[in-house]
């Protein structure tokens, strides 16, 4: 068993009004000094076998075709918990 994390973020050039709304709310709540907020998605995948190159290649393919829309989003894949 291993846990693989896929983070999906809007591309830097894409406007993220949800992140902006969070950022604007922070000073009101007493949290200062945050210049920018970008909001994204995190997927935690528990895989049955080891997180070897083959498994990671499959997950990258999954991220590219389904978890992320690469027209507007970038993704990263990393192994979090290799047992």
């Amino acid at each position, binding site marked *: 068993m291993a846990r693989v994390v896929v983070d999906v973020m809007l591309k830097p050039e*894409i*406007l993220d*009004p949800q992140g902006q709304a969070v950022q604007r709310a922070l000073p009101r709540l007493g949290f200062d000094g945050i210049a920018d907020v970008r909001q994204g998605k995190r997927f935690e995948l528990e895989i049955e076998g080891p997180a070897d190159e083959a498994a990671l290649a499959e997950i990258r393919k999954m991220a590219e075709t*389904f978890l992320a829309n690469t*027209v*507007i989003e970038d993704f990263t894949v990393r192994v979090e918990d290799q047992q």
Partner: protein
Amino acid sequence: MTTRIGVVTFPGSLDDRDALRAVKLAGAEPVSLWHRDKDLHQVDAVVLPGGFSYGDYLRAGAISRFSPVMETVIGQAKAGMPVLGICNGFQVLTESHLLPGAMLRNNHLHFICKDQKLRVENADTAWTADYESGQEIYIPLKNIDGRYTADERTLDELEAEGRVAFRYVDGNPNGSLRDIAGITNAAGNVVGLMPHPEHAVEPLIGTGRTDGLGFFTSILKRLVSA
């Protein structure tokens, strides 16, 4: 032989009934299609209706795009079958890569529900032939993920090839790039837009006008003369 126009129902579709009714009012035979059924039941064209298919989980249209019915629709659309995507249906078409770009949360983060003025920019598609290029129409708009986005190169290409089918007029309601409300593929058989023509087909409801009926009469004429 009557002209059969299919309307797909996904779990979470809202406007499939209105789309079926619009097809009927235009004079074609409406056919209900089911998301789990690959068979298109000999329809001549398909409408992907508005709503929140699969709860908009992941991204609007992202899961519907992989439904069994879409496998057939994507193949047939590439072979020339006319497909109209309305609102959520437009999102399904971009997720399917039948149309370029993507839809994002409205720039002001609010759900919109209003009568929207549009300009028909391309009256040569399978779904817009009954309009005139430059004609202004009022069509209801209701969505939260309506901000059309594509990279600059794609946008320039769409403009150069006349593939911006509809543009918002008198104010951009959601931050869509270049005021784009709807686009077409290069062949003109696949059209997607955020506003809802199926809600503007009878004077008693919707905008009080029938500006949306032209989508359905356009396709009927196209199919009958084909």
